[in-house]
């Protein structure tokens, strides 16, 4: 069961929440879940997820699991230096999103990869 902050209506029903408040969503997550702050208008809402949203990568550690932004040219990534999918106009090769492909490879616009 997720622990409600006293005096706060039980508005946050997310599965991964450990403590939450109606206004800010999850304040802490259950073990092994990733805490991510989503901005909705002026508010920041805590969300507990099994994997970080697109554009962020997961980092697990004994104390807590965090979501960190990928490099700007990546749509998704494994860590800050290794992309798994590129933004439009960039092409993936060995974890790098580049505008041009290495010699011998050509750009595939559908997969956004050097093939």
């Amino acid at each position: 069961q997720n622990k409600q902050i006293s005096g706060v209506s039980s508005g946050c029903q997310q599965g991964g929440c450990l403590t939450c408040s109606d206004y800010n969503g999850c304040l802490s997550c259950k073990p092994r879940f990733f805490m991510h702050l989503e901005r909705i208008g002026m508010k920041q809402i805590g969300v507990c997820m099994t994997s970080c949203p697109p554009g962020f990568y997961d980092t697990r550690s004994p104390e807590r699991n965090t979501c960190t932004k990928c490099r700007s040219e990546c749509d998704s990534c494994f860590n800050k230096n290794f992309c798994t999918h590129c933004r439009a106009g960039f092409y993936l090769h060995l974890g790098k999103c580049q505008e041009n492909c290495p010699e011998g490879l050509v750009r595939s616009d559908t997969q956004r990869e050097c093939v």
Partner: protein
Amino acid sequence: MCLWCFLRPGATGQGQSTAVCSPSCSCDEDGGADCSGRGLTTVPTGLRAFTYYLDLSMNNITELPAFVFKNFPYLEELRLAGNDLSFIHPEALSGLHQLKVLMLQNNQLKTVPSAALKNLHSLQSLRLDANHITTVPDDSFEDLQQLRHLWLDDNNLTEVPVGSLRHQANLQALTLALNRISYIPDNAFANLTSLVVLHLHNNRIKEIGDNCYSGLLNLETLDLNFNNLMVFPKAIEALPKLKELGFHSNDIASIPEGAFHNNPLLRTIHLYDNPLSFVGASAFQNLSDLHSLMLRGASMMQDFPILTWTNSLESLTLSGTKISSIPANLCEDLKLLRTLDLSYNEIKELPSLQGCVRLQEISFQHNHIQQIDRGTFQGLSALRLLDLSRNAIRVIHRDAFLSLTALTNLDLSMNSLTVIPTTGLSALSQLKLSGNPQMKNVLTAKNLPKLRSISLPYAYQCCAFVGCDSMTSSSEEYDVKKSTGGEDVERISMIMHCSPSPGAFKPCEHLLGNWM
């Protein structure tokens, strides 16, 4: 080139779909179905055959029966994270020939479902992290020849699954972090010739084979942080493309000579929180991409590291060592240096730092320096912070600070000074001189127009800065009328903090004779 991939079946546009969907899901027109967090215990029926993305995460599905996804031949991404999956039937994933991404993290699996993974010939990303996996059968990933990213972190592995990785020539990123691995055998990753990233942090690695990284010719990131290594990981010699290396928070006592001689592309090395006592002087030379080097507490280190060709350093921290001298040509190599922290060493003399023109912060705190020459800081027009506290400085050349036009913070406390030059310190806002008992003269505010905070050896010396007639508090509103070239008088309100502030119990004891 697969043309119909452009026109993904059912792809008609964005937004909610009026197309066929299960009541337990919300579907979009591109073939995506989101059935996450609905309390489902089984895979819903009624979804379209052209579903390419199916999110079943955060439900209560405990097992996957045979052929449960047989109606989804076009599925490319299947999310099953955050269920209570403990069993996957060997035929559960049959028919998913186009599956590229399979997410099984945050479940209850005790072993890799190797039989079920058979025939997933297109799979590129496989997440098995945050389960309870203790064994990885050797044939687990045999058929997954397109596999690029594999997550096995946060499980109960006690050894590197060498056998199962033997056929993974296309694997590019692997994490085995947060497991209980204590040893890495030689040739553990021998065939992973495409591997770029390897995370092994938060294990119990105490020892590694000298050839354990053989074959990793493309590895760029190796994370060994938070382990129990007692000896420097010599095996990194096999990693010619290494750019990022982390082994902080281990038990390593020394870094040998030539430690990184085979890793010329290194950009970052995280090695803090090790009981380092010795660092080979030649360990860090020829690392032309290294941006930052931070060595603290290598208490037995006596020689300043040789940094020839390590010429991209922007930050150098070497503190808590027995280093007693700095090479005279330091700045010939380190032209890009911005922060230099050589505090808590045994340095007696400073060379000229003239070539380090980008230096912004310098700390020589807590050394044995006795004098500052004319040329020591010459040309350092970008310098903002200079900490020379806790030395034995007796003399500072009158032109020593001439070019420090950007200096805002100067700490000369706890030295043996009698007088300090102020020419050139027009931007100074904080000056610390306390702990110079021989300095009895009064400093004038004349050369220090921007000063906001000053600490002095004696209270009476503050009278020159805060006006002793209204000795109420140490920080005072002090109106200064400044005539700005002609009649206009511009009133500047200047808040000046001076300590120790004169007061009833700290009278201006040297009042008579020398400052009235």
